[in-house]
């Protein structure tokens, strides 16, 4: 992988994805040792810039950087700078003056990581931009799938929920189709419109239609707090038509993987017994998150020794 930034999976090749997942496997070992730290990014500065609330993703990135021995710095939405009306570019210029090596940014405006990546020399890692992409989430999802399925080629992955407004879905769709998987999506007509086909996925109309041939069922979170009026009726109706319960799960393949980017609305997207059941690999997704993020930081910031030769 030979790039300065990771802004999305839309333009990432199969080789690069394999490299990232293979590297992440190596980093899983670090998190399993007693001393969960390697000196690789010692002295580098990694800034997490989270303009949207998120404890889990932010912690995961912060931990990844720290386990690589980097120094970390955090900006968040409640930072006074933005409250005072400072623009994103102004804030970025201030951060730039501190000479960081990488910025991990989550922002409600699609395209913000791209804007920073164009303007500054440091590496930009997109931790979620609006409804556009969330590449590290999709990569950890794919690593989890690969652990259980071996290869992603030819597998069928179903994504259910508010697919249109989900950056997790979009990145997964791009990554999975690059790796040769087939992606099918289902959700309410407002959240899963026919135009989704532009992304190369098959649009189906209820969760029942995806159960038969899915190797993986990924349930998306219904973000009630973000929905515009008229997007859905009630939570009750949603879970009836689009929720995953034990009955439905029985109709799927016995080895089907159940995934969710978290946090789960238990009883809405899936019932507790499914969330905590045997086919659920949700906790593995979380563990893989740190490893994938370590791999990304290593691949973006690590490099060939300046001497070039193997100085043994």
């Amino acid at each position, binding site marked *: 992988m030979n790039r300065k930034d990771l802004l999305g999976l839309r333009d990432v090749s199969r080789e690069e994805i394999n490299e990232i997942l*293979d590297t992440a496997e190596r980093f899983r070992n670090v998190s399993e040792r007693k001393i969960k*730290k390697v000196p*690789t990014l010692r002295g580098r500065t990694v800034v997490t810039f989270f303009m949207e609330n998120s404890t889990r993703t932010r912690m995961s990135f912060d931990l990844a950087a720290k386990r690589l021995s980097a120094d970390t710095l955090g900006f968040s939405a409640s930072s006074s700078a933005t409250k005072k009306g400072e623009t994103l570019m102004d804030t970025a210029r201030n951060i730039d003056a501190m000479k960081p090596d990488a910025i991990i940014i989550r922002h409600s405006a699609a395209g913000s990581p791209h804007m920073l990546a164009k303007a500054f020399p440091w590496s930009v890692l997109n931790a979620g931009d609006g409804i556009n992409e969330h590449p590290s989430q999709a990569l950890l999802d794919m690593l989890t799938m690969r652990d259980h399925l071996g290869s992603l080629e030819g597998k069928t992955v179903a994504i259910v929920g508010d697919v249109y407004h989900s950056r997790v879905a979009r990145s997964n769709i791009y990554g999975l189709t690059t790796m040769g998987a087939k992606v099918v999506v289902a959700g309410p007509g407002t959240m899963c419109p026919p135009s989704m086909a532009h992304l190369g996925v098959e649009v189906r109309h209820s969760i029942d239609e995806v159960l038969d041939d899915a190797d993986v069922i990924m349930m998306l979170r219904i973000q009630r707090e973000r929905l515009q009026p008229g997007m859905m009726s009630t939570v009750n109706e949603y879970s009836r038509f689009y929720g995953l319960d034990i009955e439905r799960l029985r109709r799927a393949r016995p080895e089907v993987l159940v995934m969710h980017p978290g946090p789960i609305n238990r009883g809405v997207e899936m019932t507790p017994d499914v969330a905590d059941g045997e086919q659920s690999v949700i906790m593995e997704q979380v563990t893989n998150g740190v490893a994938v993020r370590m791999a990304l930081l290593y691949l973006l910031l690590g*490099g060939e*020794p300046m*001497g070039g030769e*193997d*100085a*043994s």
Partner: protein
Amino acid sequence: MTRTTGMNGVEVGRTLDRLATEMIEQLGVPTDYSLVGIVTGGRPIAERLANRIEQSTGVRPATGSVDITLYRDDLYTGLEKPVLGETLLPFELTGQDIVLVDDVLFTGRTVRAALDVLNDYGRPRTVKLAVLVDRGHRELPISADFVGRTILTQKSDKVEVVVVDDESGSDQVVVHPGGPA
């Protein structure tokens, strides 16, 4: 400056035999120590030594590997990332006697990094070093306890250990001359 040629398969075999004998004499019962090969070159050497020790004593020492990529002390600049190898230490390190094994000992920086890796896994009782070839030009105060052969090289030369097959005697050590002295 004399330039040494490398070693052919027969010479490599004999050197490994001698190394294994020295290690048996000095280290005692193979259950008391473990051989840890430094990825990538040291691993096959460790395997060959373990085989010979097992042939002679009937007991095989435990083997493992350490990958030092994440611990290198060279400064990093962009572009190509070296592929991460696997660090596999399937035994408790603390209180153990470890023999680090590598194919070529040169500046000593790889060994320094390997010591750091071991440190992050535990606290070995002792760490010794066994190498097939010592080519000089040390940059750190590191020396090997078991040396196969010492060869004189220019710093700009490249020493390549080609491991093919222990049995058939097709391993070899090749010295590629670098630029003029």
